[in-house]
């Protein structure tokens, strides 16, 4: 059974003025453990698709069903709570809380989940170790490189033990070494812990590492193909 399923998913921006059809009747499923890249030119609808799947935006038509629940029909407050427990996010600009240390950034989402202090600390430390930032737990974002910040963002996304992680252009602001390092970490987690990753990306380095590549054009799925991973650690 897929963990994510969209049915006739459509999104029209400015329906009353100059309508922009960002998504047109998209039907797609994602299974647990996938490492998927959604690619396409700018304006093809890949970010909109991720926003719909992540419950950050509401579709004009259609459904987004995650683990059997239609999140597009949920009230805003319930959707926020749903995101807290089910979806992890990695953003292009890292979006860490600048006044928090790496550990605090990772811990914050678990605090929102009201986990015990001991569990929060242990899990935050373990995750930061996994992303190779064991020595930077007490550093603030300004004291870290872009790659390191994005690794903290990945650790934060994993902290809530989500069903899947949505990463919007995660490597767009990273140099090659940092990007490859980040992809290695995410790939390892996918392989070893069966964490589901869905990326929207332009970056060929990400596309090359994905085992499923969805190509979008004009708000529709143009191609959906599985591929052999070209370079893996």
């Amino acid at each position, binding site marked *: 059974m897929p963990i994510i399923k969209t049915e006739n998913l459509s999104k029209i921006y400015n329906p009353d003025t100059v309508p922009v059809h960002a998504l047109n009747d998209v039907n797609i499923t994602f299974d647990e453990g996938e490492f998927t890249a959604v690619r396409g030119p700018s304006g093809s609808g890949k970010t909109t698709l991720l926003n719909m799947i*992540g419950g950050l935006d509401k579709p004009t038509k259609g459904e987004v069903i995650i683990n059997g629940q239609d999140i597009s029909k949920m009230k*805003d407050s319930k959707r926020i709570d749903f*995101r807290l427990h089910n979806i992890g*996010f990695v953003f*292009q600009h890292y*979006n860490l809380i600048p*006044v928090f240390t790496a550990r605090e950034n990772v811990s914050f*989402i678990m605090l*929102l*989940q009201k986990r015990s202090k001991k569990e929060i600390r242990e899990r935050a430390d373990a995750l930061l170790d996994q992303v190779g930032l064991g020595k930077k737990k007490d550093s603030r974002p300004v004291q870290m490189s872009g790659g390191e910040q994005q690794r903290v963002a990945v650790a934060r996304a994993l902290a809530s033990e989500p069903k899947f992680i949505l990463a919007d252009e995660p490597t767009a602001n990273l140099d090659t070494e940092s990007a490859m390092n980040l992809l290695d970490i995410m790939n390892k987690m996918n392989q070893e812990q069966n964490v589901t990753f869905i990326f929207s990306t332009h970056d060929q380095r990400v596309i090359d590492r994905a085992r499923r590549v969805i190509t979008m054009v004009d708000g529709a799925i143009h191609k959906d193909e599985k591929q052999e991973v070209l370079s893996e650690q």
Partner: protein
Amino acid sequence: MKTLINISWRNIWRHPARSSVLIAAIVAGLWAGVVTVGLINGLMLQRIDYLIESEVTHAQVHNPEFLSEGYSWLHIPEHDEIARWLEDDSRVQSYTLRTITDGMLQSPVKTSGVRIRGVDTETETRTTTFHENIVEGEYLDSDIPNAVIMGKTLAEDHNMEVGNRIVLTFEDTNNELTSGSFNIVGIFQSASTTYDELNVFVRSDELNQLLSEETIYHEIGMMLEHEDLASSVVSDINQTFTGVEAQTWRQLSPELSMLVELGDFMVILITLIIMIALAFGILNTMLMALFERMRELGMLISIGMSRMRVFIMIMMESIILTITGAAAGMLLAWFSINHFSESGLNLEMFAEGAAQLGWDHIIYPVLTPLEYVVILIVVVAITMLASMYPALKGIRINPLEAARNT
């Protein structure tokens, strides 16, 4: 909540300069405001206390027509009975009887219209503090017969000094003009130069000898155990005795009553100005902070932070900022008021003008603990109100802000 307080506190210090400037503005504004309120309070209370304690007293009894007509035959009937009643009433601390008439003061230099106040030195000294206004010579308890004390400005006007003689002329109760020669034994200086120009004091028994065949009094002044008792004592006197009218100091001196209201109004006005400035300061800072952090707030909502928590976080930032500034400002104000309430704030450069208006140039600021608490509560309430708009704006942020790439 602890996490929210923690994140709010750290958010405040993202821009130390900006937050410090705002806190400094709150400290300075609140300090200035609270001290000003204290000074206004002090000024008003000093004026009121001075007038009550030095002359007006908490309540007075007159012949009902005396205050408007001023004739000496409009004296208090049955003053002995009223005196006995006052003697027996536990609410009355002390009282004094006064004989009053209007007349002319003649010196070799000139003639002036004055109010001649005949006082019983013993009860007057027990009841009022007017004798403390003597700046030269002595009070009326001197052994010199037909003693008079006069205001400094009046004495200077007449080129008179202690030891000189003046003649007081007035109508007696039979409408006959009578006059007496009086020896200046003292010069007084009250808070009001106008009062000093228009009043002279003599002993009531000596005045009575010239004024009437019997002992008459026109005014009974009384100090009570507490100012709040004035209304009830006045009401009891008016019910018990006929042909007299008792009035509280507020009724006797409506200008004093107005002064109290004016003081209260000024306090409210100053507080309002400070609060409006504070509200706009908070609003400006919080809106700036909000616009800078749209993406971050969007991220927080994206990852699952409820809008209510975002609201509380923004509110908390404003409240922490204000409480930090307000606490420091109030503390500074408390120290200042405490210091000046003992030593007084000497505005000597305005002494002459203040005296013309009957004000003291040394001000002892006063602020009750309740007033401190009220100001603090108002500050917090205004802060919460001012933070409401940015906080509401904050919770309306679209989580897509987090994904925005520009």
